[in-house]
């Protein structure tokens, strides 16, 4: 194995594994910037992955699959939005419910539509590089949107101090609804990537924690889009290492793959403690907005 091919494989694997994390993490950033914690990213990815498979299977067109996947994620997010914004429910519990709902309904429909509890039939796919490039561009677009446009300023204002934003005439509920749904669409696209790009089918519990890694990436990237991109790449690299490293280490030295698998989570906890600079969430992240409450 020559060095060049190792580097090329490593880079490609990094990008392949980072892409779904980046998509969902960007969704997480938008949602949390507007003040709604989104633990349900995992479920939104899962249902997005399933939707994409169904769309691609019945239309024989993977782009329709992408649309259905994104819409499915958005729909799951809409439920989260209604519960946590309209009904002011605990956002974390609501997210847990979304994850359970996604897990149950994707497996339920898998058995109903495809008569299997394991893998769906193979479906048409989209090349992974398209997603990878889109994720990159999107991160910078969202950065521009959040920090250089009036709408972005409003979103950040709503996440930091909704009362003040409300007083200034910004519709807090509307902004939060839009942001949560957008986060679901992005997570849904991340899930779509898993099922009809990285693989060519839906498998039971296909997201397998990617949504939670995305949540970690949101924090590791300190609630910024470019930070989430960097964190996503970094976590993808940690995964890619375990495929490349065994060939590079001296004979007899072995690092268990489980170590690399836990790295994103370990690092996130380290970041939270403040070793790599303090990570501070938006001030009103996780607090339902009640116009009647004086604060």
């Amino acid at each position: 194995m020559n060095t060049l091919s190792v580097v090329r494989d490593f880079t490609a694997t990094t990008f392949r594994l980072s892409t779904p994390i980046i998509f969902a993490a960007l969704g997480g950033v938008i949602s949390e910037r507007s003040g709604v914690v989104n633990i349900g990213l995992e479920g939104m990815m899962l249902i997005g992955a399933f939707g994409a498979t169904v769309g691609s299977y019945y239309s024989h067109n993977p782009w329709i699959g992408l649309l259905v996947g994104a819409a499915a994620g958005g729909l799951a997010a809409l439920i989260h939005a209604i519960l946590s914004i309209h009904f002011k429910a605990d956002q974390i519990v609501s997210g847990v419910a979304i994850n359970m709902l996604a897990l149950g309904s994707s497996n339920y429909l898998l058995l109903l539509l495809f008569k299997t509890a394991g893998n769906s039939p193979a479906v048409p796919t989209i090349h992974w590089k398209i997603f990878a490039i889109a994720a990159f561009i999107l991160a910078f677009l969202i950065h521009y949107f959040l920090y250089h446009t009036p709408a972005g300023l409003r979103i950040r204002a709503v996440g930091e101090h909704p009362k003040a934003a409300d007083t200034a005439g910004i519709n807090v509920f509307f902004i939060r609804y839009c942001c949560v749904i957008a986060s679901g669409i992005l997570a849904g696209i991340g899930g779509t990537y898993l099922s009809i790009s990285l693989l060519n089918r839906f498998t039971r519990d296909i997201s397998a924690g990617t949504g939670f890694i995305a949540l970690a990436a949101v924090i590791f990237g300190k609630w910024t889009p470019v930070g989430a991109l960097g964190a996503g790449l970094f976590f993808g690299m940690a995964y890619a290492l375990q495929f490349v490293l065994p060939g590079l280490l001296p004979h007899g030295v072995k690092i268990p793959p489980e170590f690399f698998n836990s790295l994103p989570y370990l690092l996130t906890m380290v970041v939270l403690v403040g070793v790599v600079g303090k990570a501070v969430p938006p001030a009103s992240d996780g607090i339902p907005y009640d116009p009647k409450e004086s604060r």
Partner: protein
Amino acid sequence: MKKIAREILLPISSIFFAFLVGAVIIKASGRSPFLAYQSLLMGGFGSLGNLAQTCLFSIPLIFTGLSVALAYKCGLFNIGGEGQFLLGGLFSMAAGIYIHAPFIIHFPLCLLCGFAGGAVAGAIPGWLKARYGIHEVINTIMLNWICLNFVAYIVNGPMKSPSGLGTPEPLKTAIPPLIIPDSVIPGNQLNIGFIIAIVFVLLVGFYLSRTVQGYNLKAVGLNPMAAEYGGISISKNIFLAMCLAGGLSGLGGTFYYLGDLGRIPSTLSFTGYGFEGIAVALVGGLNPIGVFGASLLFGSLESGGIFMQLNANVPKDLVTIIQALVIIFVIVPGLVQSVFNWYRAKKEKEGFEYS
């Protein structure tokens, strides 16, 4: 009396509405909701064997439910049940395999190790919250995955059995004995964990409502500043609550792996009991007795789900959907309330038209 009635009304109506939505889903799938729910009920309570199975499935749920409820009383949200469950299972399994002692010493020692394992997984986010003020939700989620990977590594590495199925089986003296002999209900696996779970329901209830320590813990949950002003340490109680909560989840893992499975399998994944514990705690109104009732219900859904799939051709994953719906209805009392209001308004309108 009225307060109790209201406290019971919310979970009951939430469960009712969740099943109602479930029925719509079954109907939309072209199956019979009546047959499905009948099979679900039969599978959960239909025979003594099924009832024993329901009780068996409820054991881990009781522990994870108590875990979430206890942490919640201290103002903490423990979604680390999955990881604590696994680590508790690992510790108790290690004790069960490597320690040689008579049953009377060995079995309690396994329980202690299981509790300790879970408590370690709970203590870390507890300490981080108490010392650095970091929100426990993120850390417990992160720890779930770290625990999963750690336990997977140990099970497939140092503790791997020659058979390759996972860890070796624990020694006979570590396995929780059956409550009902096989001759009475053939094939039942209901072990002593059920009785110990009931003891813990009472213990946690007593601890929270009758001891000074429990009072302190709740005071911190209700109003940390007032508690601190009254001389109750916030950080000490937060740390303690997370240790206890972790330990309870760890005990759930202990009974699951020592009793139900008899080993920790090599293909390790989350069991779902940690997350269902959240549902159980919420449906049970964060009250130990309520947790017990909710666990029995969810346990029956699990044992009935397989029967429903065979009998009514409805995928057993419907059970997960119903559990999620129950959570949604419980956390949004407004949702149940608005249905009631709509119904009342409709009634009043109808009444108006008649008169």
